[in-house]
């Protein structure tokens, strides 16, 4: 197992720069997610760690070793792809054996590792099937198995759950978490899904347009976002971003408060913000209300028996302790 | 790093083959064309550009060029029109129909030329019986058009295939939208199908024009360039000069001139293709 570090890494392409002076330390054994919208550079970062691409400047280290210029094989990393990238002409056993055969491991060892990995992932019965005969979830496991048998220093996962349907995705999320705990390995996980990142990670690195916006635990990211982008990226419904004055603070900056912290009441209250209901959305567990107040729009939480129609007047409680300051 | 050299090693055999068998020979041909080189006499004398000077004044060369140009223009036009019709049929045709249409393309040109030579035969040929009075291969003007017919017969399937691919690339929804908008079949064809087919048409034009300009096989077997050199194209003239007269110097000059024409044509086409994309 090993740590991974990127020091001032930049990567430019003909079309533009994918990464700009990115510095990132991933701790040994942690589950770190690289999160951001498409084009933010997260997949590029993964490729750089894997050795599929070389940085234009900066160094990449795995463990204590500088790995710039080394091929993927020499870096001892394994990768799981969104499309699984299983070899269609080999059966499951062949897929699992392939990297070990390239590494010239003795036959006995190869069979042993395949047996272990197959059992660990519950695919022992599938060893002689071809990829096209497997379901999405089964293919996912084989892709994981192909990484497992190598016992790499670092596991790189590139949106591995992206091709699965929602129910299966939730189930596989649990599997991945279990896997990480049992292996005690370093996982670098790329996703654009903030829920996945939040539930799986020890820490999250938020990227945008090739730059690191924030690195921290899920709680830190959620409760103390450092930039507006990070604040708006996490949390559903989206965080309310408003001029500070509206939320009771001084200054010309922006401030933010999460919808779940703003409570809507039907009776007037002192110190509460008054507004007009624009839209009411019932999502089963919660009722979210969009309110127009002081020239802005806010999303707030309403009690289950909320009965005010659009156009009606309501009051919103804004706890001062939950208001976040955002850099201009 | 081994892995970094590997791509170059992988392309080396192919690149070497192409260089040795195609690129270098063309350069060598240019070199030979600057000499007076008669094979039989083992003669080799540097001439500079005088072969080319002769060529410019050689009436037989200009006549061959004109013949080639006429052949190309008529053949390609016929193949495009016929090919379009066949492509439309192929859209709905089954495998057997396709294979049947492909047959003329698949057989050697020599065979197809012989086949048509028999049909054209002035004494007993079927065409002669059906349409008496035309000595197809015997009269200069008819002979060239007979050769064009053979070429059209043989290569229309190929053109049809390219146009078929283009037809299949037209999104079905666009056609549906046009029909809902009220377009009748003929109007649909003119305003929707044909414009969307343009890239395929241009591609077919490119391939076929360059091919037709280089024509050799069919004419050689059909008429060997006769009667009275009326069907002699550039390739035939160059071939005769090289192989029959053994005049490698001038023959090479003719070959290079043919090459230059094809090059100009090809570049011209690519320019058009490039800008229209």
């Amino acid at each position: 197992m090993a740590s991974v570090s990127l020091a001032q890494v930049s990567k430019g392409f003909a079309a533009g720069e994918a990464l700009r002076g990115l510095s990132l330390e991933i701790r040994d054994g942690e589950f770190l997610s690289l999160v951001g919208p498409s084009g933010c550079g997260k997949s590029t970062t993964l490729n750089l760690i894997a050795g599929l691409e070389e940085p234009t400047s900066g160094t990449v280290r795995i463990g204590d070793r500088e790995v710039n210029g080394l091929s993927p094989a020499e870096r001892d990393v394994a990768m799981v792809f969104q499309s699984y990238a299983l070899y269609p002409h080999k059966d499951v056993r062949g897929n699992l054996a392939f990297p070990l055969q390239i590494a010239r491991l003795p036959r006995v060892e190869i069979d042993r590792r395949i047996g272990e990995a197959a059992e660990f992932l519950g695919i022992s019965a599938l060893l002689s099937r071809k990829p096209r005969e497997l379901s999405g979830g089964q293919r996912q496991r084989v892709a994981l198995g192909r990484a497992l048998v190598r016992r790499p220093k670092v596991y790189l996962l590139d949106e591995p759950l992206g091709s699965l349907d929602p129910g299966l995705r939730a189930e596989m999320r649990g599997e991945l978490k279990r896997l990480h705990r049992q292996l005690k390995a370093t996982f670098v996980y790329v996703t654009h899904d903030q829920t996945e990142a939040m539930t799986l990670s020890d820490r999250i690195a938020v990227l945008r347009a090739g730059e690191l916006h924030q690195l921290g635990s899920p709680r830190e990211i959620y409760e103390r976002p450092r930039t507006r982008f990070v604040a708006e990226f996490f949390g559903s419904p989206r965080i309310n971003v408003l001029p500070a004055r509206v939320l009771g603070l001084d200054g010309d900056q922006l401030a933010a408060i999460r919808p779940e912290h703003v409570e809507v009441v039907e009776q007037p209250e002192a110190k509460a913000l008054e507004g007009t209901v624009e839209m009411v959305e019932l999502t089963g567990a919660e009722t979210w209300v969009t309110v127009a107040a002081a020239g802005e729009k806010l999303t707030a939480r309403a009690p289950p028996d909320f009965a005010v129609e659009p156009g009606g007047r309501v009051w919103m409680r804004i706890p001062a302790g939950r208001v976040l300051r955002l850099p201009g | 790093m081994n892995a970094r050299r590997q791509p170059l090693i992988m392309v080396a055999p192919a690149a070497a083959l192409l260089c040795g068998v195609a690129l270098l020979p063309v350069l060598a041909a240019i070199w030979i064309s600057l000499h007076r080189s008669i094979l039989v006499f083992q003669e080799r004398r540097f001439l500079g550009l005088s072969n080319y000077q002769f060529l410019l004044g050689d009436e037989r060369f200009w006549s061959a060029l004109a013949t080639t140009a006429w052949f190309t223009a008529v053949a390609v036009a016929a193949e495009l029109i016929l090919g379009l019709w066949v492509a439309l049929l192929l859209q709905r045709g089954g495998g057997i129909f396709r294979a049947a249409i492909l047959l003329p393309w698949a057989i050697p040109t020599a065979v197809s030329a012989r086949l048509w030579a028999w049909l054209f035969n002035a004494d007993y040929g079927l065409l002669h019986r059906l349409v008496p009075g035309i000595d197809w291969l015997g009269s200069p003007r008819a002979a060239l058009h007979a050769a064009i017919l053979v070429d059209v017969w043989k290569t229309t399937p190929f053109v049809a295939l390219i146009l078929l691919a283009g037809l299949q690339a037209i999104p079905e929804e666009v056609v549906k939208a046009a029909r809902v908008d009220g377009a009748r079949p003929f109007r649909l064809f003119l305003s929707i199908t044909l414009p969307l087919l343009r890239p395929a048409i241009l591609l077919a034009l490119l391939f076929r024009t360059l091919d037709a300009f280089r024509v050799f096989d069919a004419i050689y077997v059909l008429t060997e360039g006769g009667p009275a050199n009326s069907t002699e194209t550039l390739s035939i003239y160059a071939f005769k000069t090289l192989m029959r007269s053994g005049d490698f110097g001038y023959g090479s000059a003719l070959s290079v001139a043919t090459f230059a024409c094809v090059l100009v044509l090809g570049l011209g086409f690519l320019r058009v293709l490039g800008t229209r994309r």
Partner: protein
Amino acid sequence: MKRAPVLLFFLGPLLWQLLTSLWPEAELTRPLPRSLTLANYAGLGGSFARAALNSLLVAAGTTALCLAAGAYAAFAIARLQFRGRSLLLGASLAISMFPPIATVSPLYLLLRAAGLRDSLAGLVLPYSTFALPLTLWLLTSYFRELPDDLFRAARVDGCTPWQAFVHVFLPLATPALATTAILVFIFSWNELLYALAFVSTPAKRTIPVAIALFAGEHLEPWGQIAAASVTATLPLALLTFLFQRRIVRGLTAGAVRE
């Protein structure tokens, strides 16, 4: 849209030739034969069979050479980064447009110097002028179509480009290899110009040359010529009918990708 006139135009001459091949020599002057005979085929003789064998050898040799040289080159062009990549592909495309006549004289001299003139092996090399670009064109576009992630996975699994080619891409390329082989075979079998220029011994002629020069030996025996033509056509007809779908796919591979 009637199919009949089109079918008549394309198949008619072939059928007429078939009829002619069964037409007794003596009755060629009549509009239609009164009886059919196989005598024309019987009269074909060993020289024709030898020509068929020659064609087979040259076509097979060209196919083998071009696949052997072209397969991994196509993979490298399609998947790997190296300098001169687009130059190579562009050059091969340009080379396929050379008029064959342009290279006859130097190739003649080259083959003569190498002692390969008037030999079948000496034909295989010039044939790669058109066969190799075709191979590169078809296989490159096929390798480009295979999923990107497969190559990334192979690299992460530790493969060098060559290993990735041998273990992953080559096995997956069998359909494209088959299509390429069929097309190269057809083109090689049908070639006339080089075969005419470089091979002079009658025993070493290929089929197109034999058919082209047939009249030189006999006095226009149309029945026999027809029989020879039909025999020359049969293997190709068989190939076409069996592999029609592949051939169509191969020929149109470039067209739609444009």
